[in-house]
């Protein structure tokens, strides 16, 4: 298709609903935009060309940021995946870009030869190769679409605009999908627990989910250690200690209190640690080398703690029978 499609800078309630569902991972492959060339406002041969992915959140963030500007938007076919992940996969890549330029006959639409790409697409694009194969200069805009208007003033980005951040707002935005991802595994664990140990054990599970998917992302920068796994261990451990104090009863022996506390730490911390390790996939801060090291270091720790926690839970009855607690 070589026709130019039309779009606007307006985000309708329908778009907002789509964004909401996309964040929850609802039908995650269906938040797509038709790939191709779009006209925003009334672009001329001199208007800038912006490139993005065919994921509604990516496309809509761009057109919203450009509202009021006459421009072309070239949407690449990334199979409904956002720019950053698609660049990592290579679908937001030089090949697709060069083909899409030819396919949409972009050279007939604009007189200049330059494209503005999101900076986070750079890991999939080779600018000098695109130049050689299509004649178009690749210009990397800011990381965030919301900085585009400021960027366009001088076509230069501040160091700030070039750096990824993981602000509270961004961390909140990943919570829904973290929860949805956990739903099925959590259910698989919850059902046998419910039969074996009754409703009381479910609170522990819910607490772990809350810690791992909500509190962990929110508290991330304030958790003192460096790698994600130990941050998760600390969070789970701290929660277990607090929980033990909350549950403390006056007539309890000190030994029983300490026993319960240690058991709670071993039962909760490995799970929150594991969820924290998994959280590396939701950030743009962890390298594969670093994550590999974390997996090799901490998975044995989690496993050992989990087994110890299980032993402590099972042995409690025996200890009490012998009069130790």
């Amino acid at each position, binding site marked *: 298709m070589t026709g130019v499609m039309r779009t606007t800078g307006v985000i309708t309630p329908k778009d907002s609903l789509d964004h909401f569902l996309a964040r929850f991972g609802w039908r995650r492959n269906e938040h797509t935009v038709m790939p191709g060339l779009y006209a925003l406002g009334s672009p001329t041969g001199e208007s800038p060309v912006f490139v993005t992915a065919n994921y509604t959140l990516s496309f809509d963030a761009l057109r919203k940021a450009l509202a009021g500007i006459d421009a072309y938007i070239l949407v690449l076919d990334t199979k409904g995946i956002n720019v950053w992940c698609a660049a990592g996969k290579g679908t937001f890549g030089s090949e697709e870009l060069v083909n899409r330029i030819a396919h949409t006959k972009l050279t007939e639409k604009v007189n200049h030869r330059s494209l503005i790409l999101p900076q986070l697409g750079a890991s999939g*694009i080779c600018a000098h190769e695109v130049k050689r194969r299509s004649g178009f200069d690749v210009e990397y805009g800011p990381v965030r679409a919301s900085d585009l208007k400021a960027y366009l003033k001088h076509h230069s980005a501040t160091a700030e605009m070039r750096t990824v951040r993981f602000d509270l707002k961004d961390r909140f935005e990943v919570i829904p999908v973290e929860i949805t991802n956990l739903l099925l595994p959590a259910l698989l664990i919850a059902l046998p627990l419910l039969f074996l140990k009754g409703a009381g054990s479910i609170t522990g599970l819910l607490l772990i989910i809350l810690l791992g998917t909500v509190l962990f992302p929110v508290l991330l920068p304030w958790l003192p250690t460096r790698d994600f796994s130990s941050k998760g261990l600390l969070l789970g451990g701290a929660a277990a200690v607090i929980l033990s104090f909350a549950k403390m009863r006056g007539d309890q022996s000190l030994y029983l209190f300490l026993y319960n506390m240690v058991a709670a730490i071993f039962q909760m911390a490995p799970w929150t640690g594991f969820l924290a390790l998994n959280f590396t*996939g939701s950030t743009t801060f*962890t390298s594969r080398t*670093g994550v590999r090291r974390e997996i090799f270091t901490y998975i044995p720790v989690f496993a050992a703690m989990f087994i110890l926690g299980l032993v402590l839970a099972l042995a409690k009855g025996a200890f009490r029978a012998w009069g130790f607690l």
Partner: protein
Amino acid sequence: MTSYGKSITITCAKGDGNGINTLRYNPDLCTGCGMCVTVCPHRVFTMRERKAILANYEACMECGACQRNCPAGAISVESGVGCAGAMMRAALTGRRQEDARCE
């Protein structure tokens, strides 16, 4: 490795089989175009005297953007996803770690 001022020699020495990350940079090849400074989302590179230097080596998350866009081939990095879920899935299903991808 030629030295272009103290900081480069030091950061390059750090970049050899250090286990921190796989980013390697050879300043001898650098033409000073500044592309790596532009594309890096963690400010790993900065320009000094028309050469790129590794200013923030540890922050690299191996996205590969600098390597792909360096016209001089001065940078190498084993890029891949820093995503534990994808890597563990790859390990469990017997795929190569290098093929680990986000779902």
